[in-house]
């Protein structure tokens, strides 16, 4: 009898040991399911969309600001741009998502966590198996290349290989040199998803964006087909809509409509901090 107890004990130890070895597959929360976006935060910025000339609170540098000021929304009517997706670091601002875990059915180890965004039907893979990021000269995509690790019960994700995208869809660019760090935190049926963007080319300081989701009862998201069509006759060659420096008539609208000083509307790292309110009080509104 004692012998059987010893064998049983050894088996328990073996199982426990395997749980230590494959630690990430045990104990951490599952994100599997459909998550509905909670739009109470930043609603005007998210569904209706940001206003032209609104860069307040964005740590963009002078070059990025100049680029945004030349941006012309007409590009969204060009066939090549009609189905341009929101990049991975911006996509969490929109609509519902589905997440699922990919498991090695033999070892039960977590290989990857997948995310499908309703918006543009984009899909991401967060590799959890320890694989390295690709060569720096490998293809960059809208979704980038993501690897994840557990920090306690928080899923920490690092994404590289993002091609140039927009930090905000009113012309504020995020460069292809950006590294994005995300944290997924589950509290019961609520998901907090934070995005931390470091862009050495276009940002003065890292940019932080936070979004909340609620687990869905229905478990479904809609389809999102997009097909490009020619909407207007365009010049055959060398055409790209933009404003010459100083000639964008819409840049003042946001500041004027909301009675915000123009300097603040143009953003920069300083506009992110509470101390800026002192300066704000001294600036004229348009």
């Amino acid at each position: 009898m004692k012998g059987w107890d010893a064998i049983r004990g050894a088996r328990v130890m073996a199982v426990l040991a395997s749980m230590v070895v494959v630690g990430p597959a045990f104990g951490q929360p599952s994100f599997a399911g459909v998550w509905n976006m909670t739009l109470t935060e930043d609603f005007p910025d998210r569904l209706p969309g940001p206003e032209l000339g609104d860069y307040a609170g964005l740590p963009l540098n002078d070059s990025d600001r100049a680029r945004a000021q030349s941006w012309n929304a007409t590009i969204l009517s060009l066939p090549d741009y009609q189905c341009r997706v929101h990049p991975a670091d911006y996509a969490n601002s929109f609509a519902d998502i589905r997440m699922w875990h990919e498991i090695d059915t033999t070892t039960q180890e977590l290989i990857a966590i997948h995310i499908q965004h309703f918006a543009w039907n984009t899909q991401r893979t967060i590799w959890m198996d320890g694989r390295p990021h690709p060569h720096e000269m490998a293809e960059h995509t809208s979704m980038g290349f993501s690897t994840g690790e557990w920090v306690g019960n928080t899923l920490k994700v690092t994404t590289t290989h993002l091609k140039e995208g927009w930090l905000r869809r009113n012309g504020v660019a995020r460069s292809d040199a950006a590294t994005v760090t995300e944290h997924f935190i589950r509290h019961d049926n609520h998901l907090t998803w934070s995005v931390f963007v470091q862009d050495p080319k276009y940002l003065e300081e890292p940019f932080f964006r936070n979004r909340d989701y609620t687990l869905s009862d229905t478990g479904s998201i809609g389809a999102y087909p997009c097909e490009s069509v020619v909407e207007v006759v365009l010049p055959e060659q060398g055409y790209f809509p933009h404003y010459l420096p100083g000639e964008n008539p819409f840049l003042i609208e946001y500041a004027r409509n909301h009675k915000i000083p123009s300097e603040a509307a143009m953003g920069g790292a300083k506009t992110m901090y509470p101390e800026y309110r002192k300066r704000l009080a001294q600036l004229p509104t348009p």
Partner: protein
Amino acid sequence: MKDCIRAAAIAAMLSAGFCTASLAQAPQNFDAIQIDALQVRDNVYMLVGSGGNITVQVGDDGILLVDTQYAPLSDKIVAAIRKISLKPIYYIVNTHHHGDHTGGNVNLRAAGTTVSGGNMAGAIRDSGVGAAIIAHENVLLRLSSDKSPQALPSGGWPTSTFFGKKKELFFNGEGIEIIHVPAAHTDGDSIVFFRRSDVISAGDVFVTTSFPFIDTASGGSYQGYVAALEKLVDIIIPVYGQDGGTLVIPGHGRISNLGDVLNYREMVIVVGDRIKHMIEAGMTLEQVKAAKPTFDYDPVYGARAGAADRFIEETFETLRSPPGEAQ
């Protein structure tokens, strides 16, 4: 004097390792250079080292290369190719004549072979020696000119040239179009489209690392450069949005897709429009440069000293005096 300025500019580019002139002058420590092979599609690879990217297409028929980087790297390049395939190198395509893309022509041609026979073998005894080098005829003219700083020994000259719009091959189970894009980066540029693999090797009409270098001394022009980018956009079909589908191996930089080419085309057109507007306003070149028309793109494409000013100068020059061929 103008030649001196051009020579100085070429020397500056040479030291930057971009679109360089004679390989013999290349002031680099090639011992430290490593050749990395990245798989682009099943049978297409990109070799990254120093100088322009090399495309390697492999299959049952053999090996086709697009461009050859610098001569001192040839042994490493051959070693990298041999890790991919042991088949013979039959073809080398040159996208243009600059030394960072053709410097290894002599060595890599010698490492390959040409299928020869019939009358050809009888009439030309060395017709089977070395790989065939295919390029637009202007590449041959520049590589064989003793007045050209990029000139190569005859063993590095193209052996099969074409004029007109394109040359076609069928190799390793796919059609390959070598498409001439006139008066762009130079007057001898070709982009190479692997039709089944759905990969384009673009040469220096598309790079991800810098503003365009429009070699006006070699027949390049702003208008032709834009037309070449438009040609790439025309060929590329993405899977969705601006991702996937046709992949592009740039002359310098990373493997790209439609979005990357569109972003680059945006920059080239926006900066060109600004310069055009300034020319129409009567501004001089110095005034245009002082106005910094590349300012918003400098963090992305202006890392190399002088790259922005050079792009402005070349654009200004060819917008003021458009070349006939680019139209």
